[in-house]
């Protein structure tokens, strides 16, 4: 193995893993079981898992067709469109949250109408958490799926068309199964990003235990007064996400 690759690779690994090790070493292990049993921890964890999963589903529903649009059509201004899609990636999440308030808030461009017509107001609701998470996480999915679509051999789609398949059938039965690994990878990234989402969530959906307080929000507020609790909460979040992602990966590899 060439050392110009090996050395930076190990340094990179250490860089990524050591902070995690730091959390593990400094965790208040003695009081851990008691802290874990606190209902607000479980509540925040449950809320995080539920909202991240729903947000991922929303991203799949909207993001896969969007990726298809970007990869497979010759829309004018597609380049600009692609840049716009990645905006939530570069936007500081807090700004993203403010932007969401300006559009979907009670006095927002669309939110005002929603509120007047249906009495629906998204901020400070669990739905709002999902909206904030989906906003921030969707680019990960779109970029992954678009890449997969571009890499996929379109001649299979032509073959399907000659067999009488409509465009929709081609997408459903040929395109989608062929880019499935890309979609899955995108969904995993998307879910992980949604799970760790903090800035947009607290800005758009606020912070209320059981309704909008996800794990990252609980971690942040715990840091104000009780750093040990923050470490415990972070560890729980990490452990759960690692377990879910590892499980998913095994399944994925097993299926391939």
């Amino acid at each position, binding site marked *: 193995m060439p050392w110009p690759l090996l050395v930076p690779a190990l340094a990179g690994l250490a860089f990524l893993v050591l902070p995690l090790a730091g959390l593990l070493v400094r965790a208040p292990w003695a009081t851990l079981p008691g802290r874990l049993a606190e209902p607000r921890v479980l509540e925040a964890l449950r809320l995080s898992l539920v909202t991240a999963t729903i947000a991922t589903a929303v991203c799949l529903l909207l993001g896969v067709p969007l990726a298809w649009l970007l990869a497979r059509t010759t829309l004018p201004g597609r380049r600009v469109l692609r840049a716009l899609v990645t905006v939530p990636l570069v936007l500081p999440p807090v700004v993203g949250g403010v932007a969401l308030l*300006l559009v979907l808030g009670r006095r927002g461009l669309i939110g005002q109408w929603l509120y007047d017509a249906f009495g629906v107001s998204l901020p*400070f609701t669990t739905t709002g958490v999902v909206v904030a998470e989906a906003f921030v996480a969707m680019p990960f999915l779109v970029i992954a799926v678009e890449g997969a679509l571009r890499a996929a051999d379109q001649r299979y789609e032509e073959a399907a068309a000659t067999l009488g398949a409509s465009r929709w059938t081609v997408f459903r039965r040929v395109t989608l199964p062929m880019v499935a690994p890309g979609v899955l990878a995108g969904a995993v990234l998307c879910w992980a990003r949604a799970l760790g989402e903090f800035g947009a969530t607290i800005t758009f*959906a*606020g*912070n*209320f235990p059981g309704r909008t307080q996800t794990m990252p929000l609980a971690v942040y507020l715990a*840091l*104000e*007064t009780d750093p040990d609790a*923050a470490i415990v909460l972070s560890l729980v979040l990490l452990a759960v996400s690692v377990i879910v992602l590892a499980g998913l990966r095994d399944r994925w590899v097993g299926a391939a």
Partner: protein
Amino acid sequence: MLRRLRLAAVLASVLSLAACGSSSSDTAAPASSGGAGKTLTVFAAASLTETFTELGRRFESAHSGTKVTFNFGSSATLAQQITQGAPADVFAAASPATMKTVTDAGLASAPTVFVRNTLQIAVPEDNPAKVGSLKDLTDPKVKVALCAEQVPCGAAAVKALDAAGLKVTPVTLEQDVKATLTKVRLGEVDAALVYRTDVIASGGRVRGIDFPEAAQAVNDYPIAALAEAPAPDLAEQFVDLVLSQQGRDVLTKAGFQAP
């Protein structure tokens, strides 16, 4: 314990930077002592950003050759940074509790309360829910934002509501005053409990309503020159400036009250 605190402090500062980006940090600037080009490093609560920047300017013009650098942030975070050994000369906290962390560690003695801050009800300019008193906040139709109990304005709000014997169900418990005010300014909530200084700092886009129960939740701001100050003389002089009539004028203009 110290090591654990250090880790926690680093975590806290990283998170708060990433999260709100509101603290302008000069932590890394080392304080030099003696001679021309001296530097005074002041750690101060975020709510003091405008007033202390102004006082720093006055201090610099009075002491030519001296540079004042500030580290504004959450008082709890600052206290942790100081106990971890950050090279600070002066600490001005937004609560006696956070100052206590520092004095308990033997890093400061005899802090002085230099201002007090009281709560106001902040409402959007047009006050859509027609809020006039603290009791109005108990109406379930009124959307209320409070600071989270973990941050000083949240603790003060709880104190005031308890003193009034009122029970308010907020829609959100915000992570800091600025975030709470943003919700009011955007009209996402009908009212919030914040410090009067924050209402004044928001520049008129939020209306502040006084309420009598605020007297039960007055927040004292203590200041102290630090024991391990790299520039102990300057530290004392800065504290003196804050406590002087000149300092008081700047602070009361911003909405703080004299102790």
